[in-house]
């Protein structure tokens, strides 16, 4: 009996519940180990005028104070474009950008040194908002376009045209384990670094570059992360480089663990977006043309912003066929910490735009938004080509709409809500169903590869290691299941080693929901090779000419820890015994596996291609309750339906769905990044930045998987689930918009994202107030 498809607990669960799991700062301190912290720029944009380290140097316990000139290799780095500085050389481009590294023997010494450092800077005018960046022509990279048909003509001939804009806020990752790394100096310039990173290979190469040593001198080990969500894809590298720099300069182990406030103030977040749109549609709500202009706030450097923008553009259709469409996108350069990957990677910002538009189309026609959604949904034979040209195959979206609207009793509840809202003086209810169609694969083709190493030891136990990093999502558990089944041995006979660049080279980040798809496939490849080799050996061992069983590798089967001949299953031996014999006979018991996703490619210049191996689909139906006097909102009921293909581990998959949804719900409701005029992040800790708490979880919360055995292109017909469920949180925001439409005179409510209590009250006051403007002002002209 195999374990794929079984609900097996997370492979670290036992350590987690007992507090025994080790995270970076749980590692024992080494002899001579130093603690590392930094002093950052006091201004968001400015030039260093003077830096006096004398007093800090005299603090007892301070061992090193390092600045940009102490970097032996490159001080400049970047995941895509090398436009970031590890330590400010001359000009700081965001508040808190590290200027001086401090290494000391104790926390009090670090604190005292920080106070003793005298840094003065000449401020330069900063830019923080998308509007100001547009006005100042401050961008990262050029404009991107994805287009089809003739939007201008189609808009001109559309029966209805609606214009508007949408402001979408960022989001703090709020991984519980803040950024952290420990570096150990080795021989001849070598460094071993333990990092809380999603991308050990990038940490390896960046550390090597900052130290000016070859890549093979650096080993990066990532045992696990206390949450990441994209925040440790590129930005775990800075603390790792800092620790490595101190270790290299002092010859002593060095540890850096950001405190939560510094982490939130100085690392990037989900990109805020602002968009302007013109949509044409007919009397039935069928969209005829869409012109959508997206602007993201990239912060101070490129990081992954261009790829995030690209995914936002590739998801601006979501589940809907857009015959004539023009989506343009630009990344604004501002003086905020560089915004970065965050679960969904631009997808949520793209999807919320089209869902907002669909909601407004429905309101303007006095139709139910679900009807508009179903009418515009991608078809199964026709109307199934995306704006970038990829066909939506194995399209389960119509089935999902159909099933969830029945399961969630959508239309009955809609009637109840109509009545309720007409009579209640104190509350408003809102209801909305939104789908998700999330493209699976890195849009950067190169990254769609993985390697794995499988070692079988002579007692028959197996260690597998891949480039996948464990951040709670359960990739190690799934890889264990895969290896156990492929070798026909018990799950407990397999362990997954810490991810490490000396075992797996040139790995891609564990990101884009692809951790299992890529690394699981590589592990399977290694297992297949091993099995073939062992089958050959076993066939020789099991063959018996006297019994008329000739040598036949095709008849060797591996199952339940046994190896047998299917022609006579009584001819069997334990897997461990086979391995022992194979070792004695000098059979190679280790293997590397490799996988490269076939058939994916995307041309950025033309905006056309087949960027995704497949789509993960799903839908959410959310109901909310709003207090008319205060704007307070409660999510009262949520029904989720996900097409996860065939689950490799239904328990872990369910955890991704529920957890992703709640994280998305936080993004659209309570999680608000507030800055003051100088660019100081005011919401820099959980006291002021509000992720959902346990009492925000809807009391009625139904989660179901769609039965879909047809996803033949992927590993065991499964579907990636890391990011897609987050986008279902958008249904809470559209439900709020739905509720607000009942206030006052059923105008289209203007609502920003997140829909905080304040935003909702402001919208309510506008809807019911005497001087409420009837439609959103058309701002298109300003943009040109």
């Amino acid at each position, binding site marked *: 009996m195999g374990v794929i498809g079984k609900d097996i607990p997370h492979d670290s669960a036992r350590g*987690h519940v007992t507090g*025994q799991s080790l995270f970076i700062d749980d590692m024992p301190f080494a002899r001579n180990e130093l603690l590392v912290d930094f002093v950052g720029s006091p201004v968001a944009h400015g030039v260093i005028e003077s830096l006096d380290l004398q007093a800090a140097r005299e603090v007892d316990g301070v061992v090193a104070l390092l600045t940009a000139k102490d970097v032996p290799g490159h001080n400049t780095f970047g995941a895509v474009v090398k436009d970031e500085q590890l330590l400010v050389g001359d000009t700081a481009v965001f508040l808190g950008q590290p200027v001086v590294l401090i290494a000391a023997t104790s926390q009090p010494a670090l604190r005292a040194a920080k106070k003793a450092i005298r840094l003065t800077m000449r401020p330069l005018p900063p830019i923080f908002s998308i509007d100001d960046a547009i006005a100042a022509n401050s961008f990262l990279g050029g404009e991107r376009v994805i287009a089809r048909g003739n939007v201008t003509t189609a808009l001109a001939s559309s029966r209805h045209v609606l214009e508007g804009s949408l402001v979408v806020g960022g989001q703090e990752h709020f991984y*519980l384990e803040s950024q952290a790394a420990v570096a150990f100096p080795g021989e001849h310039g070598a460094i071993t670094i333990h990092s809380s990173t999603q991308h050990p290979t990038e940490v390896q190469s960046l550390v090597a570059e900052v130290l000016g040593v070859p890549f093979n001198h650096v080993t990066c080990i990532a045992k696990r992360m206390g949450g990441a969500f994209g925040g440790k894809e590129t930005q775990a590298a800075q603390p790792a480089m800092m620790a490595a720099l101190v270790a290299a300069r002092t010859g002593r182990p060095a540890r850096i663990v950001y405190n939560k406030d510094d982490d939130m103030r100085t690392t990037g977040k989900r990109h805020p977006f602002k968009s302007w749109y013109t949509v044409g549609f007919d009397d039935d709500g069928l969209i005829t043309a869409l012109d959508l202009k997206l602007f993201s706030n990239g912060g101070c450097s490129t990081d992954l912003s261009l790829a995030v923008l690209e995914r936002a553009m590739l998801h601006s259709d979501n589940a809907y066929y857009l015959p004539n469409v023009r989506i343009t996108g630009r990344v604004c350069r501002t003086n905020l910490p560089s915004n970065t990957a965050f679960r969904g990677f631009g997808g949520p910002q793209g999807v919320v735009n089209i869902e907002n538009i669909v909601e407004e189309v429905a309101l303007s026609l006095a139709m139910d938004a679900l009807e508009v959604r179903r009418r515009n949904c991608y078809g199964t034979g026709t109307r199934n080509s995306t704006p970038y040209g990829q066909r939506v195959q194995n399209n389960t979206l119509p089935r999902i709409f159909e099933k969830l609207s029945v399961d969630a009793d959508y239309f009955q509840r809609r009637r109840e809500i109509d009545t309720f809202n007409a009579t209640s003086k104190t509350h408003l209810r809102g209801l909305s169903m939104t789908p998700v169609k999330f493209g699976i694969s890195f849009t950067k083709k190169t990254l769609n590869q993985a390697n794995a190493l499988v070692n079988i030891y002579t007692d028959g136990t197996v260690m597998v290691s891949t480039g996948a990093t464990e951040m709670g999502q359960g990739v190690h558990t799934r890889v264990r299941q895969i290896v156990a089944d492929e070798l026909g041995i018990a799950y407990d006979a397999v362990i997954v080693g810490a991810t490490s660049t000396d075992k797996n080279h040139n790995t891609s980040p564990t990101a884009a929901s692809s951790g299992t798809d890529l690394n699981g496939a590589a592990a399977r490849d290694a297992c297949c090779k091993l099995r073939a080799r062992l089958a050959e050996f076993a066939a020789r061992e099991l063959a018996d000419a006297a019994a008329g069983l000739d040598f036949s590798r095709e008849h060797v089967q591996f199952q339940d820890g046994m190896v047998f001949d299917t022609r006579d299953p009584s001819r069997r031996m334990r897997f461990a015994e086979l391995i022992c014999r194979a070792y004695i006979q000098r059979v190679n018991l280790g293997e590397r596996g490799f996988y490269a996703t076939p058939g994916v490619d995307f041309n950025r210049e033309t905006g056309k291609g087949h960027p995704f191996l497949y789509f993960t689909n799903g839908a959410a139906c959310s109901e909310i309750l709003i207090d008319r006097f205060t704007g307070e909102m409660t999510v009262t009921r949520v029904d989720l339906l996900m097409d996860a293909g065939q689950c490799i581990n239904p328990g872990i998959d369910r*955890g991704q769905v529920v957890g992703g949804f709640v994280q998305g719900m936080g993004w659209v409701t309570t999680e608000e990044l507030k800055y003051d005029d100088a660019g100081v992040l005011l919401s820099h800790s959980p006291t*002021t930045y509000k*992720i959902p708490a346990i009492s925000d979880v809807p009391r009625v919360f139904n989660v179901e998987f769609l039965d879909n055995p047809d996803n033949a292109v992927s590993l065991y017909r499964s579907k990636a689930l890391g990011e897609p469920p987050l986008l279902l949180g958008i249904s809470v925001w559209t439900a709020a918009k739905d509720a607000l439409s009942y206030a006052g005179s059923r105008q289209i409510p203007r609502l920003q994202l997140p829909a905080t209590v304040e935003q909702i009250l402001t919208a309510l006051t506008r809807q019911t107030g005497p001087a409420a403007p009837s439609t959103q002002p058309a701002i298109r002209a300003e943009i040109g």
Partner: protein
Amino acid sequence: MRDHLLIHVNGHLHRVEGAMAFQSLSNFLRYQLTLIGTKVVCAEGDCGSCTVLIGRVEHEHIEYRPVTSCIEFLYQLDGAHVVTIEGLAYGDQLNPVQEAMVRCHGAQCGFCTPGFVVSMCAAIARGETEREQLRAALVGNLCRCTGYEPIIRAGLEVNPRAMRCIDDIYPPAPLIDSMSAAAHEPVLIHADGRTFFKPTTLAGAVAFKATDPACVIIAGGTDVGVQMNKSLRDPRVVMTLAGLSDLRQITSSEGMLTVGACATLTELERSTQLCCPELNAMLRRHGSPLIRNAGTLAGNIANGSPIGDAMPALFVLGAEIELASQGGATRRVDINQFYTGYKTNVMRPDELIARVHIPLPSANELFKLYKVSKRHDLDISSFMAAFHARLRGNVIESIRIAYGGVGPVILRLPKTEAFLTGQPLDEATMAAAGELARTEITPISDVRGSADFRLQLAENFIRRFHAEVTGSQSLVASRDGNGNGRVR
């Protein structure tokens, strides 16, 4: 006078001397004792990853309560027994909470998990096994991975009868005498320019404060602890009142609730369950259970934040603050006259808060408390409102209104109150009063909301109060209408 602390951790006694006494419990656990299961995320009591159980001797038994160890300092724990995640397993076996968390996928990344396990063990040991009880008990623990639903499911799957109580794991007999003796002994520690004093008499406390007015009094430490961790404050002289068992009392007689300065908000919550459900409901939204197990009402008053959750209620009820000073002298100050500005008050340097006297509303009075925050629970208020009124028929005979979060101190609304007195409780009157209320406050824009938002709430809450006291029917309808929804 003892010059060191005596603290038990997972059944073992630790003697803590000198400067070590001034560190946070979480640092002590992680870096001195290598009990790394206790995680630190926010260092401000707002995420629960560092949750541990603190046991103290109460009425001849050890009462264990979960608190956030990051803002608990060792000097607060003299005579206490700390139980960490490492101390909760049954030997090599997982306990039933741990088993259920494994089975139900209650852990993903694992960083918050020890805190959840500790909180859940405490809740189930208290018999809080229902869904709503678990939601309330775990509100101080943040998780970013699971969406909580698997954690609630785990809690519901635990068989409470299979749970061993803490006393089974750590038999109280060998602990209770030494804990009790230590708790009742005075302690004075001088180290590295810092002083800590734990008096055992009120006279001793007052005398010490008189000698050094800069002395900071720490009860639960839930405000001062955060300020110390965030380097906003570094008090050189600290005194806890933990040794004054008299000040832990809460008594009620003839409509007056008297709350000792060291009574925790949890104890106050329990005491108001029957005698003042409205205040009780507000207290249940005050911080989190982890904070309420440490924090005190007197601490809230002394801190004097204009967004303190308990404050507006005390203003409309006319609570009196009992201040103790040298020679056994006491005086009582109406809380409406207590504050002189942002976090400043009329206390003299040699005075300390001994008790708070709260006149409870009678059955024929209207008493309503409201709190608006960005998140419903585990959040400080953006805006608070308290109404205390007496009606004759439909006419407002008297009314007191206090708003929080709208100025440097909690504000009463004298003009609005005067306007409403003698007026009928109808929609037009209340709408006019709402507009008047706007003119009486001076809100600022900050991270928790804009001035406009608060002005609008100031107006709307008068109307909300009216809607609620006259037309509660529609509220009930909304609760029924969505089946399981809740009305806030």
